[in-house]
């Protein structure tokens, strides 16, 4: 079947969404914090230290708000999308031009 992989991808994505919905129902209190933050909290728990006592070894700029952080993540994805879209588009154009007839 020509679109087998596309169908499989759609099924997997919908399966993933279903799994997420199931988790939100099964664990209503889940906050869905980033695993990075959960890992950092675990370090604090293991060492018995307060989270605030972990200070950067190298000074670091932080996005002033969660919205700006989300925008920068979107910018990162957009950069990747632009590059991938440009290259796939160029290849598609070349492929169409080289097609006999």
């Amino acid at each position, binding site marked *: 079947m020509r679109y087998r992989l596309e169908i499989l991808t759609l099924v997997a994505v919908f399966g993933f969404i279903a799994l997420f919905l199931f988790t939100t129902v099964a664990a209503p209190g889940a906050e869905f914090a*980033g695993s990075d933050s959960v890992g950092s909290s675990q370090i604090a728990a293991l060492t018995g230290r307060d989270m605030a006592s*972990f200070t950067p*070894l190298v000074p670091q700029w932080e996005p002033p708000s969660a919205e700006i952080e989300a925008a920068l993540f979107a910018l990162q994805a957009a950069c990747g999308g632009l590059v991938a879209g440009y290259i*796939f588009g160029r290849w598609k154009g070349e492929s169409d031009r080289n097609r006999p007839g």
Partner: protein
Amino acid sequence: MHIMEGFLPLEWCLVWWIIALPFLAWGVVRLNRILAADREALPLLGITGAFIFILSSLKLPSVTGSCSHPTGTGLSAICFGPAITSVVCLVVLLFQSLFLAHGGLSVLGANIVSMGIVGPLAGYLVYRALRDTRVNLYFTVFFACAVADLFTYMTTSLELALAYPAEVGGVATSFGVFFVIFAITQVPLAIIEGIVLALVFKYIIQLKPEIISRLRIFPDEAVRAARGEA
């Protein structure tokens, strides 16, 4: 998988930097060599790098009640090997350290080792083991990419366990704790990532099969079969 800035003792930061640096240097040499030999490899490098940018920016919820992100490194590992992938990851992780406060400069070595070296190396080994067998080409890509993703998070767990061994049970207990946080969360994401990157590889094979053959990523027969020409 990011270890946050300040959350790794200085001595461990240095250890992971010392491990990462030779790999990065080797990656730059390999990158120059490949691009000098075949400029047509550059768009493929762009595609693989672009998907690392895209996928590592997506924070997705998982079954454990926390969020995580795919890595996207498997495709680059298959096409260019783990050394070049480590250089691409350096760019992505540097962007995230400087502009998103995800990771940091002192822990960059540790994050490169997990996302840019061990994960891609594991995926590359899976790809090499399956490349010349009768296993379906797209399944090989799927499996290698999923393994690369999972091993990234297992390595992060190990890095943290080594730096923070539990009082009772030491590194093994600590690894178990971090493994649940990072690696278990990652299982569904790794599966999705493997499927999506297999689909991306299908489009590469459909549009530019000659680059896959020229870089000897897969044998010609496998590429023809994947295009439905065999």
